[in-house]
Each structure stands twice: as structure tokens, then as C-alpha cells.
């Protein structure tokens, strides 16, 4: 089953009457359970592409479908609701809510989804256990290491039961041990729970773990390698 389907995706910026193609006719299909890394040099259109896949920006033309819903046609308020229920985000700088504990950060997404309390609590505990943070539920982000914070972010991304997890340079701020640990957790979640992960990364260790590597250059996918 296709989780992501992209056809002839274009994003054009008009820079003083000169058209700049950030994305120039991208076609892509990602199936459920894939573990995909998107790589490419600065200016290749990686960030723009990630914004499109995450429903954070609208394309100039083309088609993006997530789980069968064409998101390029949604209004901004519909997109917010779509992101809440369908996409899990992991950011480079963790971006946890500093005034909430690890447990509350994970639960927060389910609060936004109006999930009942019992389900929120059981799922939060299960997710924190899955990312190896059992016993740290009541710690605030400033009491956690970078690696632990990013694991909370992964648990938060999974809290809404998304169609896929979009991770933007998730290891960029982590040391090698934390990176290794995080990647193992995500790989395990991918293999055991069939969770679809899409990364944007410069980190070779992430690329090595990925089972599919897409290389973007000048707004186009120039290589698509499956391992």
C-alpha cells in the first residue's frame, strides 16, 4: 500500500522576475513500512520537499497524496488537522515543550486529538517504554540528554498513530552513541511495528541504516537506491 504518492511536483519561487525551481517535477512513491533517507547537498530542494511531504507548504503544481488523501488541495486549516492525524514529526532540535514532562509531551498530541484519558495514558506509557524511557516519564526536557529528548520526540511523533514519521535531520545534534541508540530504536519500530519512516539527513550513519536512499539535486531526484 502506498503511503506517499508524489507526481510531477513543482515548487517555483519568483526571485526578481527570475523563476527558481526549488522542486522541478519530482515523482515518488513510498510504501507502508519503508525506511527511507532523503539526501542531497544544500540547495538541492530537500527542505522544500520535506515541507511538501509534511503538509507544511503548498506546491506550485503537481500532486501529493498521503494515505490516499490529496493534500495539495487542502486549505491551511484542513492541513493542520491532517498533519495532526496523519503525520508524525521529528525535528533536528527536538522541539519539545519545555514546561511539560516527557509523558505530557507525548500525551499532548493525543489531547489535541481529543483522545480519552485512559487511552492517552496507556499509549503514552507504551510509547515511552518502546523508546527506552521507562522511569523518565516525569522528567522535563531540561533534565534529559539530547538523545533522550529526541527519543521523547519520536514517541510524540508516534502518539497520533500517523501514516508515517517525517524526521528532519534527527541526529544532527546528537553524539555518536545517542545517534546509534536512536537509529536502533527507530529501526526496531520500523521492523516490528511496520512504521514508515522518511528522513532528511546528511548523516552517513542514517544513510547506512536506511533501506532506501533518495538523492535530490537541483530540485530533482537523481538517484533512488534500494538496499
Amino acid at each position: 500500500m502506498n503511503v506517499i504518492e508524489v507526481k510531477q511536483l513543482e515548487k517555483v519561487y519568483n526571485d526578481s522576475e527570475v523563476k527558481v525551481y526549488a522542486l522541478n517535477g519530482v515523482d515518488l512513491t513510498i510504501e507502508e513500512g519503508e525506511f527511507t533517507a532523503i539526501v542531497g547537498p544544500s540547495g538541492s530542494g530537500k527542505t522544500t520537499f520535506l515541507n511538501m511531504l509534511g503538509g507544511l507548504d503548498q506546491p506550485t503544481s503537481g500532486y501529493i497524496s498521503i494515505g490516499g488523501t490529496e493534500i495539495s488541495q487542502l486549505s491551511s486549516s484542513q492541513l493542520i488537522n491532517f498533519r495532526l492525524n496523519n503525520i508524525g514529526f521529528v525535528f533536528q532540535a527536538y522541539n519539545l515543550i519545555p514546561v511539560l514532562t516527557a509523558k505530557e509531551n507525548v500525551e499532548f498530541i493525543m489531547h489535541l486529538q481529543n483522545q480519552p484519558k485512559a487511552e492517552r495514558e496507556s499509549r503514552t506509557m507504551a510509547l515511552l517504554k518502546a523508546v527506552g524511557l521507562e522511569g523518565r516519564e516525569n522528567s522535563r526536557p531540561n533534565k534529559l540528554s539530547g538523545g533522550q529528548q529526541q527519543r521523547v520526540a519520536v514517541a510524540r511523533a508516534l502518539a497520533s498513530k500517523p501514516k508515517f514519521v517525517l524526521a528532519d535531520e534527527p541526529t544532527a545534534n546528537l553524539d555518536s552513541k545517542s545517534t546509534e541508540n536512536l537509529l536502533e530504536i527507530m529501526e526496531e519500530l520500523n521492523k516490528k511495528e511496520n512504521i514508515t519512516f522518511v528522513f532528511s539527513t546528511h548523516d552517513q550513519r542514517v544513510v547506512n541504516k536506511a533501506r532506501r536512499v533518495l538523492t535530490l539535486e537541483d530540485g530533482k531526484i537523481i538517484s533512488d537506491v534500494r538496499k
Partner: protein
Amino acid sequence: MKKSTNTGSFTPSIGGGWGGGSMITSISWKNIWRNRVRSGVIIAAITIGMFAGVFTATFYKGWIKQRLNAGVETEVSHIQIHNREFGENYELKCFIPESAKLKEELSKENFIDGVSARMVVQGMIASTETGTGVRLLGVDPEKEKTVINLYKKVADGQFLEGMKRNPVLIGKKLADKLKVKVHSKLVVTLQDSQGHLTNEAFRVCGIYSIGNGMFEEMNVFVLKADLARVVQVDETTTHEMVVHLKNHDQLKEDTELLAKKYSQLLVQDWQQLTPELGILNEYGNTYIYFFIGIILLSLGFGIVNTMLMAVMERVKEIGMLMAVGMSKFRVFWMLMLETVLLTLTGGIFGILLGLLVTIATSKNGIDLSFYAKGLEDMGYSSHVYPTIEINMVVVIVILVLITGLIASIYPARKALKYKPAEAIRIDM
């Protein structure tokens, strides 16, 4: 955990609503304390501002209330009825026709609990030291007690009692001016009904003190029979019919009723008789709210500034919240709550502090006589008892709430202008 992750379903509704309300309230409250110093400073400013506002309001309210009480219950009473021409020249001949009948009718009205028929004559009063112009009020002491409580304000001597012939009750201010005491002799000069000047000796039976120098200096009370004899008119002659109502809340209705019934006479309530008291009563609260409004307006700018700083510092976080699916409405609501809670925290502290100081000073009052000696000359007591009015407190709390709500709009709107895709990548 379940095997499949594809259970999230898309419903094309607008993101947002009131779900997660308690969580958002909790985040808003916790956000206030992220920068304790900054929030502490603005909360302290609001506390001080609201304390000043509330205490000034209760102080001013107490002052007004005392003035109104004194003005209505001690000086004017609720309603006065005169001959329509009396007010223009205070002439002896401008009496109320058939006053005995009027008095009897008024006494039978079930909404009236006191009627006093006064004879009013302008004259001169002199001691061995000096003399001055006064308004002589000829009264029946027992009837007078049913309309005003001046008899309770006799500081020295008695209220037109204790002397068989020609007792006179004078104000403290007049006694000081004439340099007389109880039992001192005073000579009153006035024009009788024939137009002749006549003199009569009176003896001070009592000195009243009501904290209104003007009234004390102008109004002299004598027995109606004595005054009638001096000016050579019948004892039933009445220039001023003073009426005290059972229920002051019915003042307007009862005044209108009497005015309609006795249309040939001039029927006025205390607000018409003493316009300055009427204005004080009507606009006193407006003045208080205007004053508090100015305080809140200036605090509002400080609150906006604090919240703007808070929003600027959290651009990345706000971007993240919108990226993961927090609707604009919820982000707006979160920041609005944060501002309102910040404002209310300072506001409630300030109001409570103001009320505590009011309670602490309301029993013994605040003596201003050292700073403002002239106050009593203008009819205002120099010893003020601050008063709390629940309605006023409720209105002040609502004003604080409105300030918080208005102050939140600009910072919250500013936060909503960020695009999540850009905000999450800003380096803070």
C-alpha cells in the same frame, strides 16, 4: 502496541475546537513561570497598580458615602416641599397654604415615615463678639427627629431641650465664629410679618457638629413657636415641609407621586435640592472606574510588551506546535489564556491587598485633618472611612479580565503570522 500504524483517519474538519482545554490551560499557566523575573516584574506592577486603584476607589467611595449620608440623613432629608415662590426670595409671606392639611395628608401616606413642618426665616445672629447672617429654622423638635438625625450630632448641650424659653441650636463652626458656648446669649435680628426689624435674645442650648462647615455656619435651629412669636405669624405657618421616606430606593417614584399630587407646590428630592450631592452620587462610580481604567490602560502596555517578548522567544516552539497539528485557534487561545492568567494573578493580588488595607482602615478611618483642614468647610469630612462595595469589586475584576483579553490580542495575532515551516527552522 498494535501492529499497524495506519489507524489515523482524516476528517476534513477544521483543526481546533475546545478539546485539550485543560492541557492548554496548564501549559499557559506553566509558560508564565518560564521567565520568573520578567513575569514577576509585570505581576508586581499589576499588583501595585490594582492595589492603588482599589484602595483609592474604596477610600473615595467611603468619602462619597459619608458625604451622601451626612447630606441626606443629617442635612436635607429625602424630600422637601415649598411654596413655588419661596426659593426665589425666602420671604416670610411665601408660606405653604393649608400646611396643616398637607402635613396630615403626608403623615397618612404609607411610604412616608417622617414629616416635619418648618418655618424658615433669614436673619442676623450676634454674640458680644461678632455677628453674621443665618437661616433660622423654626422646628418642632420631636417631628424634626423623624426627618433628620441632627439630634444625634449634638456635640455639646442638648437638641432644643433643657430650656423653657428661646433655646437655639447652632453649628460648631458658627459657635467658633461667634465665640460662644452652651448657655451663651445670642441676639437674633429679623424682619417680622409687618416689615419691621425686630430683635430677640436666644440662649444656646446645644452645639451640633456634622463635619460640614458651610451647613454649621448657616443653619440655626429654634423652636417654631418662638420664631412664630418673634416674626408675628401663626404658629402653623410653614415654609418648608420635610419628608422622610420609608424606602429610599423609591425616591424617584415617591417624589414624582407627591409632585403630581401637589402640583401647585414645589416638590423636590435631595438630588434636586443639592445638585452637588446628586452629581456625586451619580458620577462617583464613573469617576472611580475611569481612574482604574487609566491605571489598567498603562498596565496594559506593559502586559503587551511582556507577552510580545514571550512570543518572540518562542517562535520556534509556536512553529512546532502548529506543525504537529495545533490549530491557530488553539495557539491563539493558549496565548490569550497566558496573558489573562498573568494579568489576573497580579490583578487578584492587588485587589485583595487593596481590600485588606480597606478592611484594616475601615474601623478607625483615616484622619486627613492634618493635611486638609479646609475639607470640612466644603462639607467633606476630614476623617474618612473606606468602604467596600461588592458590585464595585466585581466590576474591577471584570475590568482586569477585559484588560488581559485586549492585551493578549496583539501578541497572539503576531504569533499566528509565523509560518510553521519557517518558524521551526529559525535559529534562536
